[in-house]
Structures are given as structure tokens and as C-alpha cells.
């Protein structure tokens, strides 16, 4: 008897989520509610890069849009933590699309989650404006230009910018510290191509395991290579540990460190004394002009940290989407996508940004150099902008596209 009851109990536990969703379906939203979802990592390794900050950015975007455009439709925001699990992420998004009437999902950092969500989004014919993932596959092998826009950055842009610009400054011999998995390898390859195209030379590279606890050994190898530039083809904790060790071993005196995926969050975590002189590509910097400063300070007042490029990108993505809905008076996927594609993006994140036919949002990137502690005038004043890389040079050219949908045309 008991077992049967227990089973019933366990099955009803299964059903709980469904009960809610049936209700939601009964009151299915009409065209005058636009529902936006932020799917991000709130509890894992990327939670500082996106996380709660992305949700805040989306909230701010909706608030600002309501204030300026006075839309007739209602706007709702939902958010979830995918815990860096592709199955949790794709399940959540599927549930959002099917039962909660979500029209657009954004942020979606973590490449595995992003690719899985892209598939669901295509299947359900909704929209993903991806601000968080790095993989170029989103606009190449796994592109879905009718549904997916890759909004902020990708490994190609991160690698290409410094590969060209730094080399042209005369720092033309490189050595790589590469995280030993697909992400690191593609960063190294794209940078190598850019370095060679600009007349530079790659002297060598060493592969290190993901989450290595100690980098001194690899850095000694980089030091022995006598390369002018040491490229870090890694991310997160690995980058931070590489930089700390590079500083300790005095590499920074004679060699320039280029972090291929470094953000303001990493610089803040390390402090200027350790990072001064480093160079890398960013998609956004809060201290660019009055417009970015105003917005970022507003963001800071709520988040206690300056925005990363993901945060600013999420803000921009939500704004762009809402503007398109406003302009067309529709939340139909094809209509909105067409409108977004046709309208240049001008806001605190991008100037003259354009969504390309492979789904790549093309905008300017910035090659930055980290200031010396003495040059920094206020907290978070970290970068010299060495060069603005125009969008059409920053991202992978269409000629190299491996996107089947584009190739067919």
C-alpha cells in the first residue's frame, strides 16, 4: 500500500511543474504582452560576467524603453539560472516558449548552452539575441540566421583584433599559452592567422590543462621563447592565474601580455599593479564617452560593479528588440527579425551596429591597454583605448562563412 502511495506522491511531484504550465497556457498571452527572458549563469564560473548583472541590464533596458517610447504593449521579464547545464538551459527555454509565451531570450552565455538553446529556438521559431557565448559556431556551422543573432563578441573577433593591431605596433613575435580544449585551440588558431597576415611570427605555444592550479612552469617556457608578446588563449580563472604568475616571474618587464579573452571583470579582480600594460580586445568600455558613462554609472549604482561587455550587450539587445516590436507592432519572429536587420543599432553599446545575414551583429570593438596605477583617476578607470577596430574588420568576413544557410544563397 505504502509503496503505491509513495509512487503516487513521486509522480505528483513530477506533475507539479506541469500543473502550473497548463494554467499558463489557458491564459495565453495576446499580442500586447512582449515577454523577454534572460537565461544566464548565476551560480557558476561565468556568474560575474553575466549573471545578476545581465538581469539588471535587461530590467534597465525595459524601464528606459517604457520611459522613452511609451509602448502600448506590456513588457514582462523572466530570468533563470542554467547552472551551466545544457539540459537545464534547453529545458527551461522550451518551457518558456511553450507555456509562458516568451518571445525572445537573451544573454545565454556558455557555448554549450547557447548552441543547445539555438536549436530549441529555431525549432520553436522564436528569437535568441545571444550576448554571452563565445563560440563562432553560432554564426557558422550551427548558424540559424532567421532566429539567432550573435550580438556581442566571438572568439574570432577577440583573436583577430590584438593579432593584427599588436603585431603592427612592432610587437611581432608571439608565444601562446593555450587552454587545452577546443576554445583555446580556436583562439590560438585565429590569432595566429591574424599575426601572420600582419607580418608577424609565432615562435611557439604550450598547451595547459583547463583549471591548472599553477602556471609558473608554462610561463617559464614562454619567457624562454623570448617572444615579444605572450598570448593567453584561455579564460576566467586560468587567465587570472597566468597573469598573476607572469607578474611574479617578471615577464611583464620585457614582454607584453595579451589576454585573448579578458574583460574588465578580470582586471578588477587582479588590480592595476598586476595587470598594467596588458592588451586585449573588449566589446565595450564604460568610460568611452558621456553616454556610456551616464548609463554605466546608473548601472553601477545598482550593481556595485561597472558593466561588462555582456551586460551592456544585453541592455542593447533588449532595447533593439523592443524598438523593432514597437516599429512593426508585431512580435512575430520573421517580422521582428526583418526589422532588426534593416535598422542600424545606435545606443550605449553600439554605433551603427548591423545584423549581418549570417546572424552576426557587427559593431566596433576596442583594443585596450591597461593603465598604470598612477594613470588611473578613479575606481574602474582601467583602460587606454589604443584603437577602435571597425566592425567590418573586427569580425570574421562573410567570405569565410561556414554557415550553410548563407552559402546556399
Amino acid at each position, binding site marked *: 500500500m505504502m509503496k503505491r502511495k509513495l509512487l503516487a506522491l513521486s509522480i505528483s511531484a513530477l506533475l507539479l511543474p506541469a500543473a502550473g504550465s497548463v494554467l499558463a497556457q489557458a491564459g495565453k498571452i495576446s499580442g500586447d504582452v512582449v515577454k523577454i527572458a534572460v537565461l544566464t549563469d548565476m*551560480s*557558476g*564560473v*561565468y*556568474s*560575474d*560576467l553575466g549573471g545578476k548583472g545581465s538581469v539588471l541590464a535587461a530590467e534597465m533596458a525595459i524601464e528606459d524603453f517604457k520611459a522613452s517610447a511609451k509602448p502600448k504593449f506590456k513588457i514582462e521579464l523572466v530570468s533563470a539560472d542554467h547552472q551551466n547545464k545544457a539540459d537545464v538551459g534547453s529545458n527551461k527555454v522550451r518551457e518558456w516558449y511553450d507555456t509562458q509565451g516568451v518571445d525572445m531570450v537573451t544573454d545565454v552565455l556558455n557555448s554549450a548552452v547557447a548552441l543547445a538553446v539555438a536549436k530549441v529556438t529555431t525549432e520553436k521559431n522564436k528569437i535568441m539575441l545571444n550576448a554571452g557565448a563565445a563560440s563562432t559556431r553560432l554564426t557558422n556551422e550551427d548558424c540559424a540566421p532567421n532566429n539567432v543573432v550573435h550580438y556581442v563578441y566571438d572568439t574570432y573577433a577577440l583573436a583577430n583584433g590584438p593579432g593584427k593591431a599588436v603585431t603592427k605596433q612592432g610587437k611581432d613575435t608571439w608565444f601562446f599559452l593555450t587552454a*587545452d580544449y577546443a576554445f583555446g585551440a580556436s583562439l590560438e588558431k585565429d590569432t595566429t592567422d591574424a599575426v601572420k597576415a600582419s607580418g608577424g611570427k609565432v615562435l611557439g605555444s*604550450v*598547451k*595547459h*590543462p*583547463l*583549471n*591548472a*592550479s*599553477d602556471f*609558473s*612552469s*608554462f610561463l*617559464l*617556457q614562454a619567457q*624562454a621563447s623570448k617572444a615579444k608578446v605572450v598570448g593567453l588563449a584561455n579564460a*576566467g*580563472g586560468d587567465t*587570472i*592565474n597566468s597573469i*598573476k*604568475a607572469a607578474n*611574479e*616571474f*617578471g615577464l611583464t618587464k620585457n614582454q607584453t601580455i595579451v589576454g585573448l579573452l579578458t574583460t574588465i*571583470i*578580470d582586471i*578588477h*579582480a*587582479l*588590480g592595476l*599593479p*598586476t595587470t598594467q600594460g596588458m592588451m586585449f580586445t573588449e566589446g565595450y568600455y564604460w568610460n568611452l564617452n558621456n553616454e556610456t558613462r551616464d548609463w554605466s554609472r546608473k548601472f553601477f549604482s545598482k550593481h556595485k560593479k561597472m558593466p561588462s561587455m555582456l551586460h551592456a550587450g544585453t541592455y542593447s539587445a533588449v532595447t533593439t528588440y523592443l524598438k523593432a516590436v514597437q516599429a512593426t507592432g508585431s512580435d512575430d519572429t520573421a517580422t521582428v527579425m526583418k526589422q532588426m536587420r534593416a535598422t542600424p543599432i545606435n545606443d550605449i553599446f553600439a554605433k551603427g551596429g548591423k545584423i549581418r545575414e549570417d546572424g552576426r551583429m557587427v559593431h566596433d570593438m576596442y583594443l585596450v591597454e591597461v593603465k598604470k596605477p598612477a594613470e588611473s583617476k578613479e575606481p574602474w578607470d582601467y583602460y587606454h583605448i589604443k584603437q577602435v577596430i571597425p566592425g567590418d574588420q573586427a569580425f570574421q568576413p562573410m567570405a569565410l562563412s561556414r554557415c550553410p544557410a548563407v552559402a546556399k544563397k
Partner: protein
Amino acid sequence: MTEIFGVPIQALFGQLMLGLVNGSFYAVLSLGLAVIFGMLNIINFAHGALYMMGAMLTWIGLEYLGIGYWWSLLLAPIGVGLVGIAIERLMLQWLYKLDHLYGLLLTFGLALMIEGLFRDLYGVAGQPYSIPEEFAGAFNLGFMFLPKYRAWVVVASLAVCLATWFVIEKTRLGAYLRAATENPKLTQAFGINVPLMVMLTYGFGVGLAGFAGVLAAPATQIGPLMGSNLIIVVFAVVVIGGMGSILGSVVTGLGLGIIEGMTKVFWPEASATVVFMIMAVVLMIRPAGLFGREK
């Protein structure tokens, strides 16, 4: 310049030194595990989280209370030790009569909680902590520039390991401890407060983890995840050494640090797994571990 397999011999010495530095961390951490295991018969899965806590306390001390590195070196391990004592009193002590696996499961859950809480409070990107002024710069050893701080890590770790060995093997307190490990009931009958010894042992063992955390703070990323990546390697170190002897775990820790360092030069792709491979080989040849006794 002499070369071995295309690597200059000077560079090789440099890598040996670095291996020794990493080995010191392994040694202190596996020593803590061994001490706890000897007395409580549990594997402390929270060891990595408490190591992280040591580093975080160091940073918190500087950031909010203005406590410098040297005081942290003393205070942070004590703080971690007190947390350990609380864990032992509140939770672990109820599990001694059960299968030892429950201790592993409990500490695993604790590790998740501690990491999650720190992540929630301070984020994951990590915190800046610079090397204490006394250790800025490097020694010129002829074959390499050894940063002074790394040298200090080796010295401090070895000193702590040696002191631990001395206390346990050569003092009266240590004799009680060994007696309590061997036969708790009989020791209790002699009027020695065994539960107190157990509590202090656990506190001391995790205090060692905290100490390693302070040592790591200036050299690596201080973040909530710093412990969990390391602890699995340390487990493998412990399996290789066998947990029977104090000296054994120290020697194994140092040795594996050096072997790992060499792998980083000759076959960097395998440096993450070399310790596990050695473990597999040791299991095939000598299941009880290099210094262990088959029970």
C-alpha cells in the same frame, strides 16, 4: 649548454624548483587529510573548500580589517580550524558509529555549501592580493630567477610539515594521539579525553588546509572554486602515498609535485592527468599505496 631531450638543463632545474613549490601545497594538504583520516577514519571532502576559506579569510582580513599577510598566516588557519571544530562538534561526531562513507558524504555536502556561500557573497572572478613586500622580487639562482615568494612557500610548508611530524611522533601529546588512533576505548580508559583529541585533530587538520590557503593567496586566483579543482588531485596523491604515515604523505606530495612539473615540460598535454595515471599504476603494483599498510 647541455640539453636533455631538447630542453636546456638549466631550464630543467628551474622546472624542478617549481615542481617543488607545487609539491609543497600537495604535501600540506595531503598531510591534513592524513592526520584527519588517522584519527577520525573519514576522508574530508571539504578540505578543498576549507583551503579556499583560508585564502578568502586572508583577503577579507586585508580588505575589511586591515590585517596584513603575516597576521593572516596565523589568524586565518585558526579561523578555519575553529570552523572545523564547529563542524566536528555539530555534525561529524554523530557519524562515528556509522559507515565511514557517511563522513565523506557529509563533508561533500559541506563543501558544496561553503563554496556556494562564498560564491554568492563575493562572486567568482576572484580578489586581488599582492605579494607581501618582504618577498617582492626574485633570487638569482644562476639557472633561474626564483621569485622570493615561491621560495618562502617551500620553506614555510616544509617547516609546518616537519613540526607536525615532530608533535605527533616525538611528544607526549602525539603519543596520546597515536594511542587514541590505535585503540580509542583503551585510551579513554586511561583517563585521556578522546573526544577532545578527535575534535582538536580535526581542527588542526583543516587548519593545515587553511594555512595552505593563506600561502596560496598571493600566488593564485582567490576565488570560491580554487579548492575544488585541486582537491581531486590531492585525493590521488593520498591514494598513491597511502595514508598510513605522516612522512609518507609529505614525501609523496613533494615527489608528485616534481613529477607533474617535469610533465609540464616534456608533455604538457598530460600534466593534468599524470598524477591519476601514476595512481592507476601504483594501484596495480601496490594497492595499499607506497607508504601504506594493507589493513
